């Protein structure tokens, strides 16, 4: 029993991870009002060149974002005002980290790595919202890949060459 479940699990994981050519988020959904651990999976460089910088735009509605330090990479945080005020544990917040930049490291085209930050999904974001996290991947020799495409109405991320990674805000599970 355990063995067959393990095989099934492995098969499922392989199916998921086989072709991660885009930058994607590991967790595809999270409840509204809770902290979200964003794991950005970087599967390749820019047209064969090594990645040297990852810039992440923290979208509206993700509050108090905190990057996880990463050995070999330095972190820079950009603060900006939010478009509106959000209620965070009873206190209004109007500004916070709007961009996280990892730089100084090198990630070869044929290597894989993950960049992690954590942020709270504002209570005001209703379940059913899809949140896009635009990422700019900068590589050696000035090459850039921008994973920033947010689908227009009636289109899906599959219609774009460089879609932004995204996750869905869902209903709080009843415990």
């Amino acid at each position: 029993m355990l063995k067959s479940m393990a095989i099934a699990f492995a098969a499922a994981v392989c199916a998921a991870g086989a072709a991660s050519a885009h930058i994607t988020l590991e967790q595809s959904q999270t409840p509204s009002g809770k902290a979200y651990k964003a794991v950005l999976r970087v599967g390749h460089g820019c047209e064969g060149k090594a990645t040297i910088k990852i810039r992440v735009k923290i979208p509206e509605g993700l509050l108090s974002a905190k990057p996880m330090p990463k050995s070999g990479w330095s972190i820079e945080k950009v603060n900006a005002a939010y478009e509106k005020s959000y209620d965070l544990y009873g206190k209004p917040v109007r500004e916070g980290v709007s961009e996280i930049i990892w730089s100084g490291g090198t990630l070869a085209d044929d290597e894989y790595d993950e960049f992690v930050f954590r942020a709270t999904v504002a209570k005001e974001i209703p379940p059913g919202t899809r949140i896009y996290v635009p990422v700019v991947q900068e590589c050696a020799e000035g090459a850039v890949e921008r994973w920033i495409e947010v689908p227009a109405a009636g289109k899906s991320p599959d219609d774009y060459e460089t879609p932004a990674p995204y996750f869905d805000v869902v209903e709080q599970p009843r415990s």
Partner: protein
Amino acid sequence: MTRRLQAALVAAIIAMGMLVPTGALAHAALKSSTPAAGETLDRLPDEIELHFNEPVRLIRATAIDRNGTNQALDADTSGADVRLRFSDPNIRGTVMVSYRVESEDGHPVGGTLVFDIGTPSAKPLVAVGEGSGLSLPIAIWLVHTATVLFLAFVVGGALFDRWLGARNSPTASAATVMLPGAALLASGLYLQGLDEQGSGLVFAGAAPLEIAVQGNAAICASLFFLSLLTIALPLARSKTTGRVLAVVALMLAASAFTFSGHCSAADPRWLARAAIFLHSATLLFWAGSLPSLWKLGRTSPNLRPLSSFSRMIPIPFLVMILAGIVLAIVELPALIQLLSSLYGRILTVKVVLVVCLCMVAVYNRFWLTAPTLAGNPVARERLRRSIVFEIFLAVAIIGTAGLWRFAGPGQVEAAEVSQVLSIHLHSEKAMAQLELGAEASGTRKVHVAIMGPDFDALDPRQVVLRLRNPGSAIEPIKFELTKAPEGGWEVEGCPVRDPKGWLADLEVLVDDFHAVHLEGGLSD
């Protein structure tokens, strides 16, 4: 745990694994190619290589050369590399290699690689359907010319016979009108369908007819058919109803012409349509009268119809020529470019033929008709010979006009008649004015001006233009635009000649994290 429950659990876990990460799977992207896009080579390489970032499966690969001929390419795929070979290695000029691959996530992705062999094509690429050659246009032209002549002789002829002709002139039987008429109209529709399908002159089952009946060609053919039917009705044999029905038939046939051709789409539309109606009605009447007049001179001593015809013909003839002039002016944006476009050249030939015809008509009217009516046999014989010449000229004029089908100013010649193609694209966040100007090499230079939604200045970081032509199986060709010294963004060497069917997707990078897509058709 029972075996069944165990199996269900295993299946559920696999299903979850398959479902959850759909967003994580990716499209294949072209990393590089040999030759590279835009490269100029001395000769066609043995193989075209495409390198993708992940293993792909090739769905289709075609090459389009400067003549617009589409050839399928042989392909070898190994992992992320695709090698393509040409079956015809004697390609010169600009070549577009269009590919469509399926990436590991099962999504098809396409693109087009443009490069030059030798020098870039002086005669630029025309996007046409697969397998097109000259045989289909020739067939279309022949059937079209035959249809118009048949209509003129049946409908115009009936009008002449019933209004001006001898009372006992024989009426054509229903079968001799309807059978060839229906055959011509049906084959015309079939050829139109083949043309729209882009499949060349082949038998393709009922599909071309199904395509053709959705367009204006079907309205046109139905009106022609009704017009023929009106003539063939048994009712039409009686004198008075026959006369009325002949007029109705002429009006039906003339209104059919307003649904076809480029003129009907020219502006101002009401003027163009009214002119087409008058031009074709008078043309049908006049051309249709000629065989009857000729027959008259051969047998009947009763020349009364000739005298009536000669009295009244100046009016329709004038209407025909005036309406023709109106159409020419409406259609041709600048008369100076008369000879530089195919449309203009056809018009010139037609005008020369019409001038010849006018001279013959004037000669008949003022020198031959009176002596013929007075009973001079020499003049009568001359008149008959000159009517034969008129019929020959009428056939030539209708045949020449039929060539416009392939040279409308709205079609291929747009590039020559109006040098710059201007398209406005907009979305909620930005707007763009795209201008495609002609270059000496035959390709186009694209200039893009980008503005904010309220005409305010917008200084984008990057502009990428993707052009595709789904109808001609041309996958997106990607152009990275550069900043123009005089402002705006530009790129040269865009292989679009005929804007028909091309779709543009302008990607404007507003700032580091925001891109806007502006989409639209080039021929809208």
